[in-house]
């Protein structure tokens, strides 16, 4: 397996590199100009030109590419155009922890709720509860996240005022003490994590239900029941363990989805995470930051897929890598 992982890792290098090269050309050929903001009455027409010169955008495209390539090979992805010339990885280093926190909480919530709902649906197959949960899950699964987020804000932040509408902490949260600060932080995360996880949980619930139903029909479950084991033990010890195996692989592959979902959530809930950075970089035509973000998300997707494949082999010994 180690050889397989090494081979996949080596293969991912040209893959990610190809993605970056494509991104480099696509964003430069797309309409829009990073210096566009400086083209307005009252600002000398020279400014936009000087800014472009500073960003190295006056060189022909192939020259820009070679220069960029040389820098990237040395690990230098450049400085952000739109964020005070901060090195792009510094920008990302500030944003990534926020997104990782949201993603981790979402992943946990996703699987917890997904598995619980999936089991209930499978055990009570075709009952009213199963139908209700199935319809509800489908309802949430097909709902656009940004819309759902706004609805949650209207209900829980505006009408009921249970949760804050945005931000990571209350004003003056520093004075609450470490525990109070943490509670305040979690408080602010409830709505966004709920929005982000409800969609994924609904999908996982469908998956668990299917897998569980398949397992329940197996001979060894009938044997367990025939032995006179209580239903609880049959479901949780015998059926669930086997039904969950394929679900593990979902973990790897759901990472990219969670990250792309964070895009909307961070803009709506005003979290300074990777999603916000990406969206703003695109609107500002901040080329170095767009490329660095592509690098991070591309790497995540490649590794997410690798993780999924490896987990699959770990969970199911019949699959050899």
């Amino acid at each position: 397996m180690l050889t397989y992982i090494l081979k996949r890792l080596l293969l991912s290098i040209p893959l990610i590199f190809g993605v970056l090269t494509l991104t480099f050309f696509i964003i430069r050929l797309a309409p829009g100009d990073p210096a566009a903001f400086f083209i307005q009455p009252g600002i000398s027409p020279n400014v936009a030109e000087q800014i472009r010169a500073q960003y190295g955008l006056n060189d022909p495209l192939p020259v820009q590419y070679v220069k960029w390539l040389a820098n990237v090979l040395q690990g230098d992805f450049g400085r952000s155009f739109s964020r005070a010339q901060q090195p792009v990885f510094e920008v990302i280093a500030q944003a990534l922890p926020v997104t990782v926190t949201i993603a981790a909480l979402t992943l946990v919530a996703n699987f917890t709720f997904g598995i619980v709902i999936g089991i209930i649906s499978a055990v009570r197959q075709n009952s009213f509860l199963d139908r209700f949960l199935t319809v509800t899950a489908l309802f949430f699964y097909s709902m656009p996240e940004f819309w759902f987020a706004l609805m949650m804000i209207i209900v829980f932040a505006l009408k009921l005022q249970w949760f804050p509408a945005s931000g990571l902490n209350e004003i003056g949260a520093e004075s609450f003490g470490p525990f109070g600060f943490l509670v305040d932080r979690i408080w602010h995360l409830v709505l966004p994590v709920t929005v982000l996880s409800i969609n994924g949980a609904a999908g996982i619930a469908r998956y668990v239900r299917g897998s569980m139903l398949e397992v329940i029909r197996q001979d060894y479950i009938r044997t367990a029941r025939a032995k006179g084991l209580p239903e609880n033990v049959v479901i949780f010890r015998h059926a669930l363990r086997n039904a969950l195996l394929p679900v593990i692989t979902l973990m790897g592959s759901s990472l990219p989805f969670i990250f792309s979902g964070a895009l909307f959530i961070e803009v709506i809930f005003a979290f300074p995470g990777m999603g916000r950075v990406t969206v703003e970089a695109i609107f500002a035509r901040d080329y170095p930051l767009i490329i660095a973000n592509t690098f991070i998300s591309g790497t995540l997707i490649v590794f997410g897929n690798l993780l999924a494949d490896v987990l699959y082999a770990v969970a199911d010994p019949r699959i050899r890598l």
Partner: protein
Amino acid sequence: MMRVEHIQMRYGREIAFSAILAALMLLFSSCGRTPGSGDRGAAARDSTLVIAMLGDADYLNPVIGSSVTSSNISGLIYPGLLQSEFDTTTGLLNFLALEKKFRPSNGGRKPEAALARTWVMSADHKSITYILRNDAFWDDGKPVVSGDFRFTYRLYGNPVIASPRQQYLAELIGADRGSVDFDRAIETPDDTTLIFRFYKPVPEHLALFHTSLTPLPAHLWQNIKPEDFRSSPLNQKPVGAGPYRLQSWGKQQEMVLASNRKSNLPKPGNIPLINWRIVPDYTVRLAQLQTNTVDIVENIKPEDFSALLKANPGVETKSVGLRVYDYVGWSNIDQAAYHKNGQILPHPLFGSSEVRRALTMAIDREAIIDGYLKEYGSVCNTDISPSLKWAYNRSIAPHPYDPAAAASLLEKQGWRPGPDGILQKQGRKFSFVLYTNSGNARRNYASVVIQQNLKALGIDCRLDVQESNVFFENLQNRKLDAWMAGWSIGLEIDPLDVWGSDLKKSTFNFTGYRNPRIDEICELAKEKLVQTDAGPYWLEYQEIIHRDQPVTFLYWIRETLGFSKRISGEQLNISGTFYNIDDWTLTPSSNLAR
């Protein structure tokens, strides 16, 4: 097998952990606000003003900061040579030094914040000498001296630094030959004397405007190379002398300003902390104002006012204006011919001013205002704002909404209905695409009304929305025949960029409008050494623009803000919302409840 079991065990633990976390979340959600944090939170809120902003500041450095947020905040951190104030009775900009006023002041602005004690304009209007006060200090204790200005003006003019304010140096000696001769243009015989020299006579108001750029502390910045200027760590920790200083800056999250206890320019800010929170989503900003999480939200849509005021009686709305207008741009020239060989021919649809006037009369501007802006909009005649009272031409009556008159004007120009009901002239249909930028609800609303109005006359107007960057680039390259956009005007009238006949020089003349008299008027008005003497030129200018209708001016917009009632002392006007924020006070929440 061992491996699988191991995973199962780990997974089991994960499930247990998740269950605990979920239970915790449920617990929090059922017990309401966390105990204890409420009182402390209220105390913190009583001493903190919270302003919700759409976007972060780019640089808190007056030389390179370019966003509105940046200049709002820089204005509180850094000292100014003069204080400027907008006189609402005349619409003229006034400048104050500690001991001298350019015009009689209406009391809006305190001169104590100015670094200049006084100034003298030379008789030939080719130099201005400032005498600075000697009791102003940077936050690090060093005095603010004339050398700081000389040093900073070199930065403003340095092409490597690319300051968006380099236009302010356009009259200094050497600027006419391409680069300012700083040794001769700015002199500092001693620490409190600052002399600017111009290559031509400059009206005093313009000299004051252009020489009062904000200084940086030279002793801190002098060793920073120009190429490192934008990335210098000093940008993250600005050292100023104003009523506030930067306490913390969480990028894309919040900026916290604390009252600067040492400041005497004019004094430490009344409110201990000002928190500028970045909240990109409009609905969320509105929700936060409604729940008292923030105190000020800018640019509230008029349609949201009544719900907001009903939901939170502790909020009031305010409006300022008029600085912003929307218009429908008609390409006056045939862009295809212009791009092909630089030839200037009238546009086949919009080339004639009669047709453009007919289009204006076909559009029901009052209906757009009544339907969307309500009392926050008024019909726009030209690009000189009614707020600039000294120059505004009151005798111009707006073109009325008169579809019948519009139809007959079009018929006189040869546009007659074809078999499909659409107007035709020499086989060409009156059919075009009206472009606008995405994400602007007001323009979306207006464009639909315009489409219907024009359809009633037999004009086929299709709507297309483009991403803002793309839209702007197309406009810049004069690729669009018809579009809807807006301008925010400066407080100094200088319309040559937008209407100048030299299309290569006038980069914002997207329509390709050309009228030599307009060029002449703009030049003549600029030459007047007393600003108000140019008044008659501007009256004539408005008559011409109104007659020629290079674009259809739609409406002026009053910019609207939501304000918490716990704020008092605010004085908003067209020159800014936050300019006297150091005088604002907050009523404690307990008093408000009573």
